[in-house]
């Protein structure tokens, strides 16, 4: 580590990265355009780009310097307007290392430094490309506020994803199953940019060969389903390949990705609680994912994901490693009163049922069938949503659970709650129900105890904060 630099310029090869960035973020439409123009225009254009873009990149590289001193990080940049940004080290909130494909080919890493500005807004600094060793050293230096004491001992691994688990995870994840639609959308967009009538001819060819007999159609459907499943597996593997979660003392660090390798870290002190999320597809396999409920952290890039997919057996140990007081996810929760089931049901079903009734009255049969199917589907989901509702307070951690298609189990420390809000609609008051909303703050959002009984809510409030809330609870 002695040779790693904490000051100076970016890696010389960064010029390539910068040049690529300057020449164009969306190379493909440009290429498509160029192809249709012919060499007479193409050659001068490429020359111009190279003659202007590359020197610009070199100049930019030359003028960009960074330095980590005793207490602060300084970054100087800009060709004509020189900017110097100074970030005190104790303001650094996170350091992310990302290696997109080109970076990986060149052995470089992009460093993104997140800092809390005075007003609580986020300021961000980015070093476009440095060598991996420099990046690691930089990250270590920026994040270790206690100066080099905690370093060097091997960080214990809390979780490591196996490809098999990730594949199953992709197959059972709503997000990756839906990803196919996104891919098709992007391809469609690209196709629009292709020159000439390539797309039209391709469509015609496909249409001509479209199967008309039953077995052909079945084969086509099976192929389509297989493609969707394949994409789901590929997506999961691509994003989360080699996912490793490590505990580095005051923070957790997650590394992931096949082509683009990302390292993100999250301070333990920013974690207010832990979420377990699963879908109906994952529940039969007893698989779940673990997320941090964290404040003051950018949402993007799945940085609060602690584990993309894990078997239920291992979850408790993992939760305990992050939060020693975490309750067992297998522990039963207090269910909510039957009135909550009625409310879930009525809210889910009344609109589609009304639509079905109208369609039946108008004798619009296809619409009626559709509306009835929708009603039935939503009724099943509503009943499951009720079954999943529950909460529990063990004196130190509050557990709440809700949701069906996206079920979320949350454990959190009541000390972290910024404010408490009790809501009751006219229906809830008539049914003796209430919703308790717990605001967590700084982007951590809120969690709620949905449709708990009045008596349950009274008891929960008094237990959650005996000094603040118990005096406000109406005596029985």
């Amino acid at each position: 580590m002695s040779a790693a630099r904490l000051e100076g310029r970016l890696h010389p090869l960064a010029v390539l990265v910068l040049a690529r960035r300057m020449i164009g973020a969306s190379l493909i439409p440009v290429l498509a355009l160029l192809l249709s123009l012919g060499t007479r225009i193409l050659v001068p254009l490429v020359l111009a780009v190279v003659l202007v873009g590359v020197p610009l990149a070199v100049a930019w590289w030359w003028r960009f310097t960074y330095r980590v001193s005793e207490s602060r990080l300084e970054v100087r940049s800009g060709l004509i307007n020189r900017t110097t940004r100074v970030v005190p080290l104790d303001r650094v909130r996170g350091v992310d290392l990302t290696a997109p494909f080109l970076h990986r080919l060149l052995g470089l890493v992009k460093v993104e430094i997140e800092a809390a500005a005075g007003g609580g807004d986020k300021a961000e600094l980015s070093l476009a490309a440095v060598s991996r060793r420099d990046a690691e050293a930089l990250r270590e230096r920026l994040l270790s506020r206690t100066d080099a004491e905690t370093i060097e001992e091997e960080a214990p691994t809390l979780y490591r994803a196996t490809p098999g688990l990730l594949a199953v995870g992709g197959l059972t994840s709503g997000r990756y199953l839906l990803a196919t639609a996104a891919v098709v959308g992007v391809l469609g967009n690209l196709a629009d940019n292709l020159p000439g009538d390539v797309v039209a001819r391709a469509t015609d060819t496909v249409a001509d060969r479209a199967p008309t007999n039953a077995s052909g159609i079945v084969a086509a459907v099976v192929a389509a389903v297989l493609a969707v499943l394949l994409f789901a597996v590929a997506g999961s593997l691509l994003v989360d390949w080699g996912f490793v979660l490590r505990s580095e003392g005051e923070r957790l660090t997650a590394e992931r990705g096949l082509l683009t390798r990302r390292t993100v870290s999250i301070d333990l002190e920013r974690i207010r609680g832990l979420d377990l999320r699963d879908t109906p597809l994952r529940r039969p396999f007893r698989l779940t994912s673990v997320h941090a409920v964290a404040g003051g952290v950018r949402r993007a890039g799945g940085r609060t994901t602690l584990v993309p997919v894990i078997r239920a057996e291992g979850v408790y140990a993992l939760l305990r490693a992050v939060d020693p007081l975490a309750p067992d996810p297998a522990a039963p929760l207090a269910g909510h009163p039957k009135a909550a089931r009625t409310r879930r049901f009525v809210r889910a079903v009344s609109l589609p049922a009304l639509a079905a009734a109208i369609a039946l009255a108008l004798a619009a049969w296809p619409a009626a069938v559709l509306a009835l199917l929708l009603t039935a589907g939503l009724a099943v989901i509503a009943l499951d949503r009720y079954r999943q509702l529950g909460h529990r307070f063990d004196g130190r951690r509050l557990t709440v659970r809700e949701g069906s298609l996206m079920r979320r189990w949350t454990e959190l420390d009541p000390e972290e709650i910024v404010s408490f809000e009790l809501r009751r609609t006219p229906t809830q008051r008539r049914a003796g129900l209430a919703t308790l909303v717990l605001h967590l703050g700084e982007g951590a959002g809120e969690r709620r105890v949905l449709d708990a009984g009045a008596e349950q809510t009274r008891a929960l409030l008094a237990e959650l904060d005996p000094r603040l809330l118990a005096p406000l609870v109406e005596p029985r």
Partner: protein
Amino acid sequence: MSVILRQPAEALDLRMRTVWVVQGAITTAVLGLGVIVAVVVLVVADASTAAWIVGAAGAVAVIASAVVMVWLLPIHDHRYFRYEVTELGLYVARGWLWRRWQVVPHARIETVDIRSGPLLRAFGLVAVQVATAAAGGGTGIPGLDPSVADALVEELSRRAGVEEERA
């Protein structure tokens, strides 16, 4: 109808009800004006059937708005809005049909603002706004006499300070 939390002690200044009545009246007047303009335009354009329909629907809307915004809401919003500074937090209850009870611990209060728009000023009132680190976690008291508001802000900051020292 089982009660969960007790009512906070303090009510809003009675003048706030008048402010809401005036606000409702302004909204209703704007709505009424819009309906009149629409009807006149339709009459000029010689679309008398449409003018009748718009006029009738508009009249219903204006009457409904008058009943709800000028009469019911001000009375009930005022009646159901209550607040109290307890030892450890600010406790605010509000809402007539959709009821909300909010408790913000003093230690979590980040800023306390006193605001007054032209309408509030005309009635000699101010609003107190309390913000926390959570976007939805803040609360506010819409209409207080300035002297009451000053005392409230004073007390909130004092208790927040005490709470911080203890922590």
